[in-house]
């Protein structure tokens, strides 16, 4: 049996009075791609951010890679940092560092956090850039790239830390439609290569093709989960059906 890279149990998170996650549990097996779909406000982005402690849960326990945290108690900062180091994060709006070149964006973490040698980090970064098809852009600044290219650099930056899991927060939502394909194909390649991925997305077709499991969130809980053929192809829950219907037939 394959090992699980993420095990979440009873995760709760509230912002003030607004309870966004109401006890969420799921697992992500090693080498699998998990997509999280659901209406906006259903808690899918908060759930993803909890896996990187960008939003720290109020209760529940999560293991990512080798670090397990119990959020019902206060978590020391160094623990949080170790936990965070288990995953890489790709933002909806890429959040590249504008004052650093493409190469420096990717090597920042390896050199200054992981204290690896500059030569080694740059060699690996160059390889990653080749992988996302941007080898010739290594010395340019983010503003010189298109949105799709910027997002691919964002992916390379996340991969450079050699995380156990790569997290994607709606990676194509901020892109022009004609640029969506290049980013999705990079993510698909990662899935094929055996990276463990968790992807929040509205791209239902993509979720269907790429993922091994689909989580459908609604009102702070996972309403339905399983292989895409079931959750997307033949949903059991009425709310899942309504959601998919709205997305696939907007008119």
């Amino acid at each position, binding site marked *: 049996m394959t090992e699980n890279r993420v095990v979440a149990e009873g995760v709760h998170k509230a912002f003030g009075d607004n309870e966004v996650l109401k006890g969420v549990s799921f697992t992500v097996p090693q080498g699998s791609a998990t997509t999280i779909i659901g209406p906006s406000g259903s808690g899918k982005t908060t759930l993803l951010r909890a896996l*990187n402690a*960008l939003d720290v849960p109020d209760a529940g326990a999560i293991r990512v890679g080798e670090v397990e945290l119990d959020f019902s108690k206060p978590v020391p*900062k160094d623990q949080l*940092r170790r936990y*965070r*180091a288990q995953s*890489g*994060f790709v*933002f909806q*709006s890429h*959040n*590249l*560092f*504008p*004052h*650093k070149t493409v190469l420096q964006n990717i090597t*920042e*973490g390896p050199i*200054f*956090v*992981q204290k690896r040698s500059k030569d080694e980090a740059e060699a690996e970064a160059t390889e990653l850039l080749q992988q996302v098809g941007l080898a010739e852009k290594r010395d340019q*600044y*983010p*503003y*010189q790239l298109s949105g799709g290219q910027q997002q691919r650099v964002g992916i390379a*930056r*996340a991969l450079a*830390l050699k995380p156990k899991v790569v997290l994607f927060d709606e990676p194509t939502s901020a892109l022009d439609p004609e640029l969506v394909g290049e980013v999705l194909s990079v993510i698909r390649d990662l899935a094929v290569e055996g990276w463990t991925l968790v992807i929040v997305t509205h791209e239902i077709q993509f979720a269907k093709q790429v993922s091994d499991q689909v989580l459908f969130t609604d009102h702070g809980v996972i309403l339905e989960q399983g292989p895409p053929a079931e959750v997307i192809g033949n949903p059991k829950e009425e709310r899942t059906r309504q959601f998919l219907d709205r997305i696939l037939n907007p008119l």
Partner: protein
Amino acid sequence: MAVLLLAAFLLTACGSSATNGDNPVKSAGVLRVGTEGVYSPFSYHDPATGQLVGYDVDVARAVADKLGVKVEFVETPWDSIFAALEANRFDVVANEVTINAERKQKYDLSEPYSVGEGVIVTRANDNSIKTLDDLKGKVAAENATSNWADVARKAGARVETVEGFTQAIKLLNQGRVDVVVNDSIAVYAYLAETGDTSVKIAGSVGEKSEQGFAARKNSGLLPDLNKALDELRADGTLADISQKYLKANASGAPAAGNQAQPKSTWDLILESLGPLAKAAITKTIPLTVISFVIGLVIALAVALARLSSNVVLTNVARFYISIIRGTPLLVQLFIVFYALPELGVKIDPFPAAVIAFSLNVGGYAAEIIRSAIQSIPKGQWEAAETIGLNYVGALRRIILPQATRVAVPPLSNTLISLVKDTSLASTILVTELLRQAQIIAAPTFEFFALYGTAAVYYWVICLVLSFGQNGVERRLERYVAR
């Protein structure tokens, strides 16, 4: 030598028994004398040698000699000279301090070493003023805290306050004021030195003025000072010094021929270029640079405190910013320099100026840095977190480099203002650019030329800084879409 020491010892002993207290000057071995340095011919810099000279200066030297101690002069603007005396910056004031009842109450005043008469000076062609009664409704130029200002005010004149006698005469010359009331000695000396015929002595205020040293109340210095003055008067030294500087007073008219040809304004400016450059390079620029750098460090700390989630830190930072921005810089300078000594913290002029300016820059730049940090999108902090940087790392490597770009234009403003604000340090005895210009201008009455030259220096410094700003901005803009 042994005899001298013995004599000094006996003198000290005498003084002690007479005043029932120690003479601190004797025990320190140095008499510290506060004087204006821009009040010709009593206290000014010899244009030829640059040395501090003048009637009061030489009398103070002679007195120190009599006391068997060294002398040390501290140059201070008249209007803060008593504050500096109280703050123990020096032991006595030697600056034609007029003896009056009010001052006697507050200070130890020595016997007079110069005696003059108050006179009314007007423009040569003005016959409307002959006596004090004619001052009613006129405008007089006087030092704010001098007794002549009181005399003019009581006579019904409106008083424009000026920095010194020479400036007062300049205003009179220019027709900006109608009258200057001052000591006959100073007026005669002015007429003798300049050969100025555009002003005249129109009358007397019928009041003798006696000038002596001022020391802090109960200083224990008076017996020794008076004894020394008596001896100097008896042996003719006072008369000699008076001859040297105030001969115009004795004769009542300028002594023709023994006056050096007045320098042309142009020569004066050329000669001032070196000293002014020196003041700019050794005082104004270091003061600016050091204060700005320290100020930026303070500002960064305050900005971070202001942004922190700790309520105490935030409020302390707010309070600091509000105090600094809500009070005049001049007052801040005075507090550091004149008020802290009362609490036992005595700081030399230059470091005191650095402290005051640094704190000031800290307050203003803190808000600039805070808003620059806040202008960086939250996503940058989050991205820095996700690649594993901690708070300090994120700040240093990701946030501050970007915030710098935002902060450089307003910070450049602060820096350029600071260059000119350093001129305020002249009020706390730092001989920076403006003060140097004052010193050079004082005996020559060429204020406009010297201040103008100083202004050009300030402008050049600011011009260089503006070029620097452009360079920095261009460098920081390299990663921004144009």
